[in-house]
């Protein structure tokens, strides 16, 4: 009898390009990015960090609704999105609003999504995406379907989907990667392993040493990557995309990352399940800090440039929240209109009733 778990597991190593000190440790895999691209990656991370801080503040003031903080996960979110083309399709989880924004979702719509307004779910024409999924893992099976559709139509595009470490326990996760594998569909499955599914640490979530190795059972490629290293995340996503559009099938990417904040702004208290030591250990790996060091070493980034981005972000957010406030409030009758192509008789009757109620 030959068992292979140990030997298979031990082969999954974390892929990295930039170490914690901002030094390149893997020159061979350095992606082909221009100086402008490199600066753009930094700009986006700084902008997104500010957006997170402001969103938390706006939530506390009662000006935003549902919000899942993103700080710590910028490299995982933005590095993978940067590897996409405009025609690719994004199926995000509830924390993955930044990818939508950088794909083209206006900020005020992201805020409307947070408030539970349906207009926040209406993607602009050039953004091929669903609004963030609330049910953990549901998007994984749907990504297999979008990818199969692309393959059938002969498109050179991919479906990319995101979940967290907890999401890999759902049946939908296994079904999604298995279906995509069976059809050799052009899908990219990202698992942002931020170590905790609300309070439950990944060690209690599974006996598997890595989440990337779950790809093996589905017969697809899997890779673990340093999720605090934006160059590494970009490089593996770009490679997965290339292989997908070349007909080489789907890839499972596990990004090793951390959420600095609570699970959501609805009462989660991380001090109940993690320690300050854990937090500070991960803050040392911060994606912005290490990429800033890297860029400064290349004379591509300065404090002045960073401050400019911060001001730009704050300014945009201020304008966007004004636009959000000015947008017509969602009504029950709006919901009714969004249920079917044509109003069925029960809703026709109720429409009259609620028009009257909402006109008061």
């Amino acid at each position, binding site marked *: 009898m030959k068992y292979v778990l140990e030997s298979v597991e031990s082969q999954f190593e974390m892929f990295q390009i930039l170490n914690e000190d901002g030094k390149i440790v893997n020159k061979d895999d350095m992606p082909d990015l221009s100086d402008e691209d490199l600066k753009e990656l930094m700009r986006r991370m700084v902008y997104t960090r500010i957006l997170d801080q402001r969103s938390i503040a706006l939530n506390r003031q009662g000006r935003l*609704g549902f919000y899942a903080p993103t700080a710590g996960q910028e490299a995982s979110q933005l590095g993978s999105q940067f590897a996409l083309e405009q025609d690719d399709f994004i199926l995000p989880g509830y924390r993955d609003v930044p990818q939508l924004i950088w794909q083209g979702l206006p900020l005020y719509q992201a805020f409307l999504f947070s408030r539970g307004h349906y207009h926040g779910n209406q993607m602009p024409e050039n953004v091929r995406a669903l609004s963030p999924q*609330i049910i953990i893992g549901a998007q994984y099976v749907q990504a297999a379907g979008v990818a199969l559709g692309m393959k059938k139509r002969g498109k050179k595009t991919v479906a990319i989907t995101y979940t967290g470490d907890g999401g890999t326990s759902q*049946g939908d996760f296994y079904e999604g990667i298995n279906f995509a594998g069976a059809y050799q569909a052009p899908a990219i499955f990202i698992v942002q392993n931020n170590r905790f599914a609300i309070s*439950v640490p990944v060690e209690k979530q599974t006996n598997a040493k890595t989440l990337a190795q779950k790809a093996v059972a589905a017969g697809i490629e899997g890779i673990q990557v340093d999720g605090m290293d934006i160059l590494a995340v970009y490089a593996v996503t770009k490679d997965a995309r290339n292989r997908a559009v070349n007909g080489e099938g789907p890839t499972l990417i596990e990004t090793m990352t951390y959420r600095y904040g609570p699970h959501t702004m609805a009462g989660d208290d991380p001090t109940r399940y993690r320690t300050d030591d854990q937090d500070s250990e991960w803050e040392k790996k911060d994606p912005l800090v290490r990429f800033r060091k890297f860029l400064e070493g290349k004379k591509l980034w300065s404090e002045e440039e960073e401050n400019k981005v911060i001001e730009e972000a704050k300014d945009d957010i201020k304008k966007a929240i004004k636009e959000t406030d000015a947008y017509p*409030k969602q009504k*029950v009758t*709006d919901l009714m209109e969004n249920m079917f192509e044509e109003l069925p008789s029960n*809703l026709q009757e*109720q429409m009259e009733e609620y028009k009257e109620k909402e006109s008061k």
Partner: protein
Amino acid sequence: MAQMTMIQAITDAMRTELKNDENVLVFGEDVGQNGGVFRATEGLQDEFGEDRVFDTPLAESGIGGLSIGLALEGYRPVPEIQFFGFVYEVMDSISGQMSRMRYRSGGSHTNPITIRSPFGGGVHTPELHADSLEGLIAQQPGIKVVIPSTPYDAKGLLIQSIRDNDPVLFLEHMKLYRSFRGEVPEEEYTLELGKADIKREGKDVTLIAYGAMVHASLKAAEELEKDGIEAEVIDLRTVSPIDIDTIIESVEKTNRVVVVQEAQRQAGVAANIVAEIQERAILHLEAPVLRVTAPDTVYAFSEAEEVWLPNHKDIVEKVNTVINF
């Protein structure tokens, strides 16, 4: 007697049964060290150990299957589904499996499982967190559906649910978790499942409700009293099975009925009650039985929530209609 919130009464009921019966196990997502996202299991892992109170991996279908398996091995599982909007992930375990276990094994296996789950609107949750989906399970033979409206009821009903030898879905309205306190005996007690409770007596009209709508009905009754209308408020406490006797007795007294549910109008628990009343007591009715419900859309999370949810004013309006019929 202690003053408790509903969530404290729920914790107290679990503690009571964890003490009483070594086969009781409490588990689910975040229920261990974190004490549950609403803190319903606060302190239970410390008190009873990780063997009895534990976190599961994140998978509702897994929690359902695990419960069935543990029950087959003689345990009495009390799993938590973190929000009842996630029930679709575990529908097969509930409706396709545990509710049929007694039938399917000719009574040689039972599934004494109590699924606890928060539900209900008014607390600004995101999509699929607030939906009133009790009707889905009430339609499934082989499982009881219990919905308390007060701390006192919650404790007695939950203890009885855990002791019941068939599956029970125990739905906890989020808005009621901490909105008020009530007297709850520190000692153990049980309340019979399938038995409604008259929360207020009256002679002019019967209001039938459950969950948060019991409180909306009581508020409506206070308003109506100012106009000299005495409303009787029946809290179903169990929506499957329904306590028909209590309902009919009240209808025969008041001759007028309004049924209130937070769920959408179509194919709901209220419709079932209206049907039962007209089959059994039509000659006692002075007016059609009316319903107060939400409209037939998805739950209006956050914006528009307050208009979407039925309230005491809607109830007063319908009562006036049946009174003036």
